């Protein structure tokens, strides 16, 4: 039996293997969206400017980091800026997933890790093995809005609130001209189309954060606990944020959730959220920052884990409630002496005014001032 591959196919195979690998390895909650092929997208890399050098106090050396793909674009542009300013420094961030980042960190291979959710108690406990005399802490670094994208030709603006959203995603509201939706959109002509909800089939921090919001803002309409795996009834599942966005784009009458950059890249319309504020809030970087501003720090000591509970129910003007925050995981004390100077210097830069100002261009949200201040002092105290 001959199963010979022609050399041309071999190239195709290698390419496909690479794609497959990428698909498998970036199985993180929120994916990046770096292939911004359409012009005018904000998902590209923010451009670096030479003035960044001022915020960077250079250290030499080489560090490894890994984890969440939600913050991949942000980290990539930061690394580029840092390495431009500091020849002799190499920061290697391997994008995989939050879960994998934490596992790597607790095995001692990472100088720091990226994660969509703060460390669990069990993970903190096992981090004591790698942090000599200290423990792993979660430092919030990158915020971002989760956009609710929809595809309904003829409806250019759609307002929903948390209970309605929860019922839609749980298949209790099944048609677009349901009274509940009509009540929120008096001016729109809503079709009788059936609602097709789209969710993630892979476990993801995006799902976790969306269901945290639904549970937090509409506990009576969302009967499930928040989880990385989708629990709602009905609807279709697609792989990764890119898959959800593609399916929403294809399917008339569909509604799905993904990071803002996907909505921008695919030019999908996003839902405005009626939070009880004077006007419905749109998913934008600035509005997400305002939403995160109402989060509470619940970490003890130098741990800055955030509780976004207050953000979900905020009624502040222009504060978008469906947000996620990615954390950098490092040791508060007992970081490896070989990697500490560069780690600290890099985290100093990305939490600085300069570093945070890079975020908006990529569809992320800078940390609100109060939290950013705490982050800076925590990073400065790493040892």
């Amino acid at each position, binding site marked *: 039996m001959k199963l010979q591959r022609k050399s041309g196919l071999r190239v195709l195979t290698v390419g496909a293997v690479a794609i497959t690998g990428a698909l498998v390895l970036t199985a993180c909650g929120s994916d990046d969206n770096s292939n911004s092929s359409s012009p005018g997208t904000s998902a590209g890399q923010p451009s670096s400017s030479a003035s960044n050098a001022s915020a960077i106090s250079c250290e030499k050396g080489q560090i490894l980091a890994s984890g969440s793909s939600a913050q991949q674009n942000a980290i990539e542009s930061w690394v580029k800026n840092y390495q431009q300013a500091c020849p002799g420094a190499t920061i290697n961030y391997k994008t995989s*997933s*939050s879960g994998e980042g934490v596992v790597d960190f607790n095995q001692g291979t990472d100088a720091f890790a990226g994660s969509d959710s703060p460390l669990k108690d069990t993970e903190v406990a096992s981090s004591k093995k790698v942090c000599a005399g200290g423990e792993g802490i979660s430092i919030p670094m990158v915020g971002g809005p989760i956009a609710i994208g929809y595809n309904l030709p003829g409806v250019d603006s759609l307002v929903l609130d948390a209970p309605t959203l929860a019922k839609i995603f749980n298949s209790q509201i099944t048609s677009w001209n349901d009274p509940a939706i009509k009540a929120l959109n008096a001016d729109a002509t809503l079709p009788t189309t059936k609602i*097709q909800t789209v969710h993630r089939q892979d476990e993801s921090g995006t799902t976790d954060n969306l269901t945290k919001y639904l549970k937090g803002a509409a506990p009576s309409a969302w009967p499930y606990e928040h989880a990385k795996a989708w629990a709602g009834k009905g609807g*279709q599942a697609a792989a990764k944020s890119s898959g959800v966005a593609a399916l929403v784009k294809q399917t008339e009458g569909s509604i799905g959730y993904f990071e803002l950059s996907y909505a921008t890249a695919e030019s999908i319309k996003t839902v405005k959220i009626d939070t009880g504020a004077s006007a419905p809030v749109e998913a934008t970087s600035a509005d997400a920052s305002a939403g995160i501003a109402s989060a509470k720090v619940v970490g003890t000591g130098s741990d800055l884990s955030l509780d976004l509970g207050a953000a979900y129910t905020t009624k502040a003007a222009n504060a978008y409630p469906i947000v996620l925050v990615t954390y950098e995981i490092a040791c508060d004390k007992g970081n490896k002496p070989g990697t500490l100077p560069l780690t600290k210097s890099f985290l100093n830069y990305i939490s600085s005014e300069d570093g945070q100002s890079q975020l908006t261009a990529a569809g992320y949200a800078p940390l609100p001032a109060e939290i950013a201040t705490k982050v800076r002092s925590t990073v400065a105290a790493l040892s």
Partner: protein
Amino acid sequence: MTITTPPPTAPPHHIKAVTRPGDRIFAGMSRGSGVLLLVVVAAIAIFLTVRAVSAISEDHGNFLTTFEWNASLNPPVFGVAVLAYGTIVSSIIAMVIAVPIAIGIALFITHYAPRSLGEPIAYVIDLLAAVPSIIYGLWGALFLVPHLHGLNLWLDTYFGWTVIFAKQDPNSSARSLFTVGILLAIMILPIITNVSREVIRQVPKMHEEAAIALGATRWEVIRLSVLPFARSGIISASMLGLGRALGETMAVATVLSASPQLSAHLLDPVGGTFSQNIVAKFGEADEFGRDALIASGLVLFVITLLVNGAARVIIQRRKEYSGANA
């Protein structure tokens, strides 16, 4: 009508061959290869079992009957019911479609087509095997799914009474186990066709000529001398294909709209398979979640072993035809 060959009898005097160092080295190397394979399989089985047992003991649902997969919950609840069902059903659909077509193609190439046509067809089938599964997945998601929508509606309308072809929501997309089965059928076609073709080629010319001499038509030749002789080889070929269908990952993950529901309606976009579930959950899984996924892998391992064992038994029972000694 069966054709039996007498079993070969051992020569009366066993003549001892001369052995030189090269013989011993070669014998040792080939023995080592055989042992190595056994060691590797045993190592895989032990690894799977050790990791799986630790996870299953923590499971707060019944591992075999729970539908959902929430290993990250506290307490964790996960089970393989939906995955086992989806894996088996999609593979059965694939086999029902692929095996008859593969045998047909193999017979066409060997017995019906002129050489000038058979060779190119065989080559094109080989090419199918060279397409990576992610490409099948993308083609399935972007082309097959939208184009099967009409067929789904037609099946629902005229065959809805069979229950399996009843679609609960006619508007839902065709990202179902049925579509996955069709895609898997295309993916396993080349391997079954190729191996079957080689086996059919090995049917002794004498058998066929004898049948023709007795006045058999071409169909009767195939029925009486080719298929019985090639049967065990064709079964082996099908098993190779089935193995690929059971374990296929990327194509299924790209096409199927996975959700933890067990549905007898093949056209509903629900369900899941072992490999698809592992690929979907692995990235975000912590240590425990990975152990849980490995436990599901162990179940697939066992299912594959059972299937292969059954195939072996069938082949053993037909040992007298030692074509392509499977």
